[in-house]
């Protein structure tokens, strides 16, 4: 089997979708402004998917990321409300750190319960999904939390503030994080352990990999990325929203799977997950542009996900033969 083909599939899918909508949608579709729009719209799912890439490669899953994103938006808004006008310059940074930290703490809890009590990650995070959602609503006193305007609000502007940025700062962040995750997965001991854990946990244990610790670290990373995605969601909404990102965990999982991640563990790539998120953004944007009604959008996105997973199966069969 040539290893490159499964890796190439998401790129081909993205190219195919883009070409198709170039034909279907009005000319504005392949304008620079729309390109920037698509990139901006893939930031939140994309960053969440980068964290999920670690989790899925290690053979786990994290269903609580949507709720963690909501938690992060609320906590960020609350943190910004602590300052009095004029806001001190460090406050947005502290709020950003709080959002990331909040995600990481949620992730640590997911990892700890999964590793310590040897429970299925699906069940654990199904539970914490509800818990964190409740936490977000409690933090927000069951309403959206408005916040004073800061530079954070500009992170997701399609027309970025300074012209030389060209695209939204959030997009640059997404690209930088993708590169960082790719490096960690390929060039670090930790990254190698992530793959080993997902491919065969017993073998990893045999080789002295600290399995429980790694699991906790992996979920913590996944959570931290959800926290950053939450900060981007805040920038998008300009408010803390306890109902934000409901169901987004499935978009995030889908992005990873489309990008070559395998729910059986041991497979997945940072760039692939980014492409998965982009592909879904292109589909939504293209469907809007072409005026395709919602029900067809749902059908198309669903078909693509099944197609990606089907490809995964075919790939596995091909490699066995």
């Amino acid at each position, binding site marked *: *089997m040539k*290893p490159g083909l499964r890796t190439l599939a998401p790129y081909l899918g993205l190219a195919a979708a883009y070409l198709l909508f170039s034909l279907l949608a009005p000319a504005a579709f392949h304008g620079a402004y729309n390109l920037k729009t698509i990139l901006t719209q893939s930031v939140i799912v994309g960053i969440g998917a980068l964290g999920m890439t670690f989790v899925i490669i290690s053979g786990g899953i994290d269903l609580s990321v949507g709720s963690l994103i909501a938690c992060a938006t609320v906590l960020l808004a609350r943190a910004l409300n602590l300052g009095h006008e004029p806001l001190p310059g460090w406050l947005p940074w502290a709020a950003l750190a709080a959002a990331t930290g909040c995600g990481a703490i949620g992730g640590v809890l997911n990892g700890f319960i999964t590793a310590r009590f040897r429970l299925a990650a699906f069940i654990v995070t199904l539970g914490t999904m509800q818990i964190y959602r409740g936490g977000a609503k409690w933090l927000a006193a069951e309403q959206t939390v408005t916040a004073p305007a800061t530079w954070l609000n500009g992170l997701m502007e399609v027309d970025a503030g300074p012209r030389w940025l060209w695209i939204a700062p959030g997009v640059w962040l997404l690209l930088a994080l993708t590169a960082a995750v790719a*490096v960690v997965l*390929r*060039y*670090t*001991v*930790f990254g*190698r*352990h992530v*793959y*080993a854990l997902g*491919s*065969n946990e*017993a*073998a*990893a*244990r*045999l*080789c*002295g*990999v*600290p399995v429980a610790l790694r699991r906790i670290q992996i979920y913590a990373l996944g959570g931290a990325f959800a926290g950053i995605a939450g900060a981007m969601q805040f920038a998008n909404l300009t408010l803390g929203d306890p109902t934000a990102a409901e169901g987004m965990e499935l978009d995030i999982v889908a992005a990873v799977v489309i990008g070559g991640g395998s729910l*059986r*563990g*041991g*497979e997945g790539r940072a760039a692939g997950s980014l492409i998965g998120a982009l592909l879904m953004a292109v589909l939504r944007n293209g469907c809007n542009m072409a005026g395709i009604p919602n029900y067809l959008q749902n059908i198309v996105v669903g078909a693509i996900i099944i197609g990606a997973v089907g490809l995964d199966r075919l790939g596995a069969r091909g*490699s*066995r*033969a």
Partner: protein
Amino acid sequence: MVGELSKPHLSGPHLNEPRSGRPILRVLGVKKAFGAAQALRGADLEVLPGEIHALVGENGAGKSTLMAILGGNLRPDSGDIAFRGEDWTPAGPAEARNRGVSLVHQELALVPHLNVESNVTLGNEKARFGFARSQADRVRAALEELGYADLDPGARVGSLGMAERQIVEIARALFHDAKLILMDEPTSSLPARDVERLFAALGRLKARGIAIVYISHFLDEVARVADRISVLRDGATVAAGLPADTPTPDILQAMVGRPVAEIFPPRQGNLGGTVLEARGWVSRPGAAPADLSLRKGQILGLAGLVGSGRSALLRSLYGLRRPVAGSLAIGGEAELARGWTLERARASGIGFLSEDRKDEGLALGLSIRANSTLGELRRFANAAGLLRLDAEAAAVETMRTDLAMRSQGIEQPVGELSGGNQQKVALGRLLLGDATVWLLDEPTRGVDVGAKAEIYRLIAAEAAQGKAVIWAGSYLPELFGICDSLAVLHRGKLSPIRPISAWSEATVMAWAAQGVHA
């Protein structure tokens, strides 16, 4: 090399009786390719009714592919098959079964959550008004016929042992009125006693005129049970219908395609100082305290029946399971068993090879590179924590060449390799590490003859360079060939360690069976 000839604990009546008559199955020039790989390039096979026909060959020779074709799981690319005098191309497992060909799988195809009866009748249930009707009587009759009248049709298959599960599969074949039963490695996971019972069952099938194609690695078993032997090599039949009394070296030569030279390398007996000493070591609750010492350059064999606690002993020494009591001295420093962990074992220079390559030893989806360095990644990381991939690749490449590993480079997923090459990856991991004490649990399991010889040479060479090795195995000729001292376990009770020359196969078996010196 006499090692391959006999399994000493096997005894009893010979089943071999020549049969004659028109063949029930005739396979001629069957070919099958998977992509570029030609798995079968001309397989022939002729089986008589009431005959046990052994099919032998190295791993990858195409035995399982041929079985899958006959069982209807694969379509041949070309070639002729005739069954009971008619031309036949198996169209699917159900069609093959209805014709009277049943495949007893290597990895048993049973539903563990259902009971014996449901498993036997699976796919052939009788229903009245949609409710399954009990066929327990017929199932019981099939079991009785196989000499397993004591097996309860209502027992859950998940609660049965390997041997009984196998019987359930064979009973399923009987239930479907099979004329030809294909058995792929039926004894590979059975203890000796169950092997005897299985052979008895095969004798009864034979008496009923049912033909059996029997694939096995164990040539001694083949010699006992088979009427005739066919040999596959590189996807082609190289010897067809050899008589059962063909000398084993001849069969081996047909299998590997060259004369089998010395399988076991010569051992030189200069041992160094003691590197590991266990006192009163209790590896699992109920086991007797064991004393064990190991010297530099020594290969200590650990014999014993399945379940005697060999694995438990090795695993507790490696810290994979928490030992109950005792103390352990490695390089002079004594440690108590409590608090002995995998991290400390590894830090003290102990390395371990699992008997279960697939589920524990290797990450089959990952590359040779990732598998072989998984335990020693820090060696290849720079101060910033980044891996030096070039240095890693060079080390793995050297190891691959040293071990004569047959693969497409170091990035190939381990799952695509043959059993022998997989085992080389697992051993390569030890080579790349800095462990000085190697605990090897069944290191040649599921490895073909050629690769076995290479593994023997490798371990002997490592011992000569000062490694201390404990080799746990159940195949006595192998232990006698490779080890310089031996200890035997009987239900967790360890015999004294003695030089290999002080043991005979009879005394080993006596201790293994009764825990006393004969």
